[in-house]
């Protein structure tokens, strides 16, 4: 079988014994992909690229970093000042975290808009939410490592969330810290976990891809692929499209790294951690702000923690909360409006997370939090009973060809 596929004798020899080349050829080269994917489908591969970038720069940074409260801050500054190209590598890693989250959030909202989480892709979605959760844990612990003021106080505040758990809360926090405050033991274990979790993410990403390739990508119309006339081989069509998307992404990324490297950071993190002085306003990194707003919106300590984790928990059960059988918002006129409201709601929560918890901000946080849960827990299950969806097209080829027949689509492909 592989005889005709590969010309190179070495490749042929290896592939006969270990069919990695057949696998890659099948999954990356011939892999049939819907031909109507828009640019929002670029963000999956961009997320993969961001993950690899973070791992590579992270390994390199760890070669120069010292995980000790007395040396951590200075070792990061040594990377910035003395290590060859250290500033570049560190700024890539630091801004890479933000861009990773930007890409992943767009990827998630893409899934929400086009109903990519619906049967038969429920596990694909759940694995994705798991990746998000692992990313958050990794990012949080990574932010502690430079041992600046925000590192220290962020670690203190977030670990203290667990003290809200009844009875065992205090013991759990002490256990997390390995002491009676965030200190050297905490820094060491955070470094260890920050190093290892990305590889766990890689494992889940592989499962995510296996699940994806089981049924193939969803598409903007949300109807199933009917046959080869609806798909194109991944290569060269989507390899070149991903390369173009990557170039655009890198242009934004490089602009941040080279010209505004500290735009998404906080000045206080250039002050070494001081357990005796809390900065006037502590805020998490921007990608945690919506969750932080939910945490603060609830007046009860335990309640706040539960709502915050609940905001992610609802994502896990989303495939069963949404009762509509129509995937794409293009054919769900009412859901489409609510989708944009949800997006604005999340942006608003992000904004509120950065504002002081007082006055109008508290009230707005509560409204926005209420909407978030209303959207997932009430709107998703009930909307299908009210909403009248638009008629679905017969196949992917039809709308793409603007009234042409499936046969002519086939003819175009034959011509090549």
């Amino acid at each position: 079988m592989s005889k005709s596929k590969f010309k190179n004798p070495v490749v042929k020899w290896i592939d006969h014994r270990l069919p990695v080349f057949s696998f890659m050829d099948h999954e990356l080269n011939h892999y049939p992909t819907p031909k109507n994917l828009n640019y929002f489908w670029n963000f999956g591969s961009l997320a993969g690229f961001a993950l690899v970038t973070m791992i590579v720069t992270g390994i390199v940074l760890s070669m120069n970093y010292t995980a000790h409260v007395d040396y951590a801050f200075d070792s990061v500054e040594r990377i910035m000042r003395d290590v060859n190209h250290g500033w570049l590598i560190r700024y890539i890693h630091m801004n890479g975290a933000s861009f990773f989250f930007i890409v992943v959030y767009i990827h998630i909202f893409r899934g929400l808009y086009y109903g990519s989480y619906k049967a038969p892709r429920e596990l694909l979605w759940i694995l994705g939410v798991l990746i998000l959760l692992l990313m958050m844990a990794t990012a949080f612990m990574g932010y502690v490592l430079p041992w600046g003021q925000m590192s220290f106080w962020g670690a203190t505040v977030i670990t203290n969330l667990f003290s809200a758990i009844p009875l065992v809360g205090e013991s759990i926090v002490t256990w997390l810290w390995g002491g009676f405050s965030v200190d050297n033991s905490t820094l060491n274990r955070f470094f260890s976990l920050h190093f290892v979790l990305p590889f766990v993410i890689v494992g889940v990403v592989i499962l995510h891809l296996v699940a994806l390739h089981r049924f193939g990508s969803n598409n903007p119309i949300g109807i199933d692929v009917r046959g080869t006339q609806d798909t194109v081989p991944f290569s060269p069509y989507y390899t070149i499209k991903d390369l173009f998307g990557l170039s655009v992404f890198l242009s934004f990324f490089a602009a941040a790294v080279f010209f505004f490297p500290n735009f998404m950071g906080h000045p206080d993190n250039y002050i070494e951690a001081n357990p005796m002085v809390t900065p006037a306003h502590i805020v998490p990194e921007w990608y945690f702000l919506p969750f932080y707003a939910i945490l603060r919106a609830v007046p009860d300590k335990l309640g706040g923690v539960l709502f915050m984790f609940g905001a992610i928990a609802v994502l896990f059960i989303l495939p069963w909360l949404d009762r509509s059988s129509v995937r794409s918002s293009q054919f769900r006129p009412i859901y489409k409006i609510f989708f944009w409201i949800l997006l604005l709601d999340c942006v608003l929560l992000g904004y509120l997370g950065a504002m002081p918890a007082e006055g109008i901000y508290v009230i707005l946080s509560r409204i926005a939090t209420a909407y978030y849960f209303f959207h997932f827990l009430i709107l998703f299950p009930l909307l299908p009973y009210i909403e009248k969806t638009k008629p679905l097209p017969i196949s992917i080829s039809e709308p793409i060809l603007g009234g042409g027949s499936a046969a002519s689509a086939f003819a175009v492909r034959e011509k090549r």
Partner: protein
Amino acid sequence: MPKNSKSKNSNEGKRDFLIVSTYTIAGIGAAAVAWPLIDQMNPAADTLALASTEVDLSSLEEGQAITVTWRGKPVFVRHRTPEEIKLAKQVSLDDMRHPERDEDRVPNEKYIVLVGVCTHLGCVPLGQKSGDVKGQYGGWFCPCHGSHYDHSGRIRKGPAPTNLEVPSYKFLSDNVIKIG
């Protein structure tokens, strides 16, 4: 779309050229990114700044030796007696594995300065302290695999292939040397 085959061919040629050059440029970019990742493992600016060391020899008596640290390695400095200098100079070069004249190894014959790392497999030879084994030739002796060095740090017996390395150094004054 009616096209004659010639223009079609040249279009395909242009098309292929465009695609190939796109992927080539992308490949060049990826390769360029590798350099900072590799170069970060080279000595950093602060490490390079410590690459030279000054040593004051004024308190070093005849027959005594001191060991100083330079670039993370021991450097041997021995104040040789006239007897030792004589021995170092009169040996015939024919008897040596790595023939070098003593004059070529010491700018000031009173002081011998050596990198204290055996050229065999990197152990630190004995012979700096007064009670140390100094080997058959009175210089240094490497305990790991039995290399014997003479008063000029030259290999005379044992597995080491070359003489003990003389670091680059210069006398800033009569008694102060700058190594590196």
